[in-house]
């Protein structure tokens, strides 16, 4: 086996050898040349704490970091207000990730050629490509305006520097002197204990939690994506040591998109969790969440164009599940999220989404659903183990699966849209200070989805996609 590999490497093309050599040299240069950095991530430099104090592995929070966040980015040591900071302090951190990645997508329909011309037919091909790339750029700025007045603003761009506001919120903390009452207003991340915004993985499919964004194939409801930051207001509270937490949010049904909603519909998001001191194992937490909302399926039109604010015929949807954070000593932990999802049959038939400017179906008066239409339902679970070798090195794994339990249209393949995905990776922080963050990130993700590929000839329509990624994830 080894010999086979050796002969293959010996016989590889010159560019392949150079690539291998260059990559190896790069690794050693990176690791041997790493120095303490003098950059200033916003919170760490304010309080003089290492990244590891708040992050199990940056950017994922540990319990102390979660409490800090729940306190409105305050240590509660009476030095939280800006008046205590050096006037030169500027609470800004930027984050961007130069990467190399290789994506392989199976079963892409491509035109068939013969004799140098397109025949008019199609065939199935696997497309694999690799190259250097960039993530978007995030400008994080947050902290306190005064004791118990917090804010967070996050202009975020895609890789072409096209910006939007990912987060804009202000928060009144410890109302009436109680940690049980905090009020947040703006666009913010929902109170997901396993935060997608602090996810430890970066690939296209592994860099999100599929559970947080899932909609059945053909479904028109984009409003139930608990992974997207949402516009609304949130009341949140916690015990002094953060063992007990709750939150209740009311959100515009716009999936976080700015501008007036297309209809007068709201969504609620509720969480509750309780942590337990389990001695040598650490602190384990159990919780539950529910997202219950409505969104319009019918829009008045003007010249055939749907009008903003005119949405009617609200239909409902809900997502609910459990969250578990289980720690097994200082090195190993397991994060678990389950979900049961339900969409109204109208959504299941493609009515609803107008945010992207393309309404797939407009439930005008007199419209009827196809015979036998039913509300689609599904169940899913994600399991994410972490092995924290040291505060500087964390191995990450994830298995996520979503299974349709009822399709909107009877007769549809029962597994249409089912997803399974595995992610493996590790993040290595060559240095660990309160001034900057740097992680050498390596990750592999494989995703399988049933029924969403093209059906040509005898091929099945399942799609497999894989991505390998290495990058330098840094903030300053």
């Amino acid at each position, binding site marked *: 086996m080894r010999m086979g590999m050796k002969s293959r490497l010996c016989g590889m093309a010159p560019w392949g050898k150079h690539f291998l050599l260059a990559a190896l040299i790069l690794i050693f240069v990176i690791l041997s040349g790493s120095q303490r950095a003098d950059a200033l991530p916003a919170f760490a430099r304010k309080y003089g704490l290492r990244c590891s104090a708040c992050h199990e592995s940056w950017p994922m929070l540990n319990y102390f970091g979660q409490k800090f966040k729940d306190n409105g980015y305050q240590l509660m040591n009476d*030095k939280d207000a800006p008046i205590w900071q050096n006037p030169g302090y500027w609470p800004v951190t930027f984050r961007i990730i130069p990467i190399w990645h290789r994506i392989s997508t199976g079963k892409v329909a491509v035109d068939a050629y013969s004799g140098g011309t397109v025949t008019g037919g199609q065939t199935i091909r696997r497309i694999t490509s690799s190259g250097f790339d960039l993530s978007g750029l995030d400008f994080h700025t947050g902290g306190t305006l005064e004791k118990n007045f917090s804010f967070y603003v996050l202009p975020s761009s895609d890789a072409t520097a096209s910006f939007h506001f990912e987060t804009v919120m202000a928060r009144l903390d410890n109302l009436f002197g109680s940690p049980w009452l905090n009020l947040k207003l703006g666009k913010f991340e929902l109170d997901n204990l396993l935060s997608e915004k602090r996810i430890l993985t970066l690939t296209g499919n592994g860099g999100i939690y599929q559970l947080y964004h899932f909609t059945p194939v053909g479904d028109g409801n984009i409003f139930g994506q608990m992974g997207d930051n949402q516009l609304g207001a949130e009341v949140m509270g916690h015990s002094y040591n953060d063992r007990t937490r709750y939150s209740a949010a009311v959100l515009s049904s716009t999936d976080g998109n700015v501008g007036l909603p297309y209809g007068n519909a709201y969504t609620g998001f509720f969480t509750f969790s309780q942590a337990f001191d*389990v001695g040598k194992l650490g602190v384990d937490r159990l919780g539950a969440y529910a997202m219950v909302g409505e969104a319009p399926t019918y829009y008045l039109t003007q010249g055939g164009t749907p009008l903003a604010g005119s949405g009617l015929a609200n239909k409902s949807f809900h997502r609910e599940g459990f969250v578990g954070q289980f720690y097994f000593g200082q090195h190993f932990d397991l994060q678990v999220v389950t979900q049961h999802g339900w969409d109204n049959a109208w959504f299941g038939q493609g009515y609803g989404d107008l945010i992207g400017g393309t309404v797939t179906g407009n439930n005008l008066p007199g419209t009827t659903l196809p015979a036998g239409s039913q509300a689609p339902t599904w169940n899913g679970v994600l399991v994410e183990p972490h092995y924290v070798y*040291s505060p500087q090195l964390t191995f990450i794994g994830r298995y996520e699966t979503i299974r349709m339990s009822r399709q909107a249209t009877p007769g549809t393949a029962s597994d249409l849209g089912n997803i399974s995905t595995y992610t493996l990776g590790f993040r290595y922080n060559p240095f660990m*200070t309160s001034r900057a963050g740097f992680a050498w990130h390596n990750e592999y993700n494989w995703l399988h989805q049933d029924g969403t590929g093209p059906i040509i000839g005898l091929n099945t329509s399942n799609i497999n996609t894989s991505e390998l990624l290495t990058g330098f994830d840094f903030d300053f």
Partner: protein
Amino acid sequence: MNSLKRVHFFSVILNFVLAAGISVARAQDAPDVGPHPPEPLKAMESHIGNVTGHSRDAKLDYRRYCAGCHGDLGDGNGENAVWLDPKPRDFTMATFKCRSTVTGMLPTDQDLFNTIARGLTNSNMPIWNTFTKQQRADLVAYIKTFSPRWEKEKPADPIKIPTEPPVTIESIAHGKALYTKLECWKCHGPQGKGDGPSAATLTDSKDQPIRPYNFTAGGDDSRFKCGSTNADIYKIFITGVDGTPMPSFADVIQPNDAWDLVHFLRTLQVKRHSKENEVLKAAGGKIPPYNETPSTPPASPNNSAAPASPSENRTAGGGN
């Protein structure tokens, strides 16, 4: 073409695995985060109730949460120390501010445990109450590995805190007189704002500037460095704050005098709701002059509770 792609792919995988191996090796020693923690002088234990802490179990937690300020060597010279005010504790000196033991003695394990959970207000020491009891007990044991004093000496027994006498306008007045007589005002200022004539000159045992406590800052959530109850203030008078200019008054004042001083200090916290401020308000908002009669006035219809006897002792943690 396919074989080239395969080689390409395998070379990437090889790098991936190799990188993981190198990262493991590097992360073991953490060469870029300063000097390595020395091997502990001796494995230490701590005893907090029925929880036993072991220093060996706190190594990772210390590195993750503490070393940035207190330093890998426990000498208070973490990479953030230069930016912090006040400076982080130097564990190699085994001198601790918040103790229940008499001045100059080592604190109890419980004292260190409480400090970790409580944090230190007006400093960068957070409230680490998200840790489990076991984690905190382990960290207490780990802190004890930095100084040989923990091997040679044993902590003294906690001081006894007598029952707090009732708050009266007379006790407040006597406390005010003591505040003047003991020259507390020289550091803490006449109004307790921490702006006394000596305030600007104060340094700690490592010659770092240090500011006296400002009693007037903060409202109902105000805390002192070593606690927030009246008993905690009493304890500070008796034990002193080692490593700072705040001395122990154990040999200077009697227990009831110390309680009177506590009652007066509470009235300096003008934004805080307290029984002392209620008593002061009921007395017209002015503290009457104190005359050298017995510090505890005779019982009256408004003050029928008997003064506590110094022999009516109780341990730390009481108070209001």
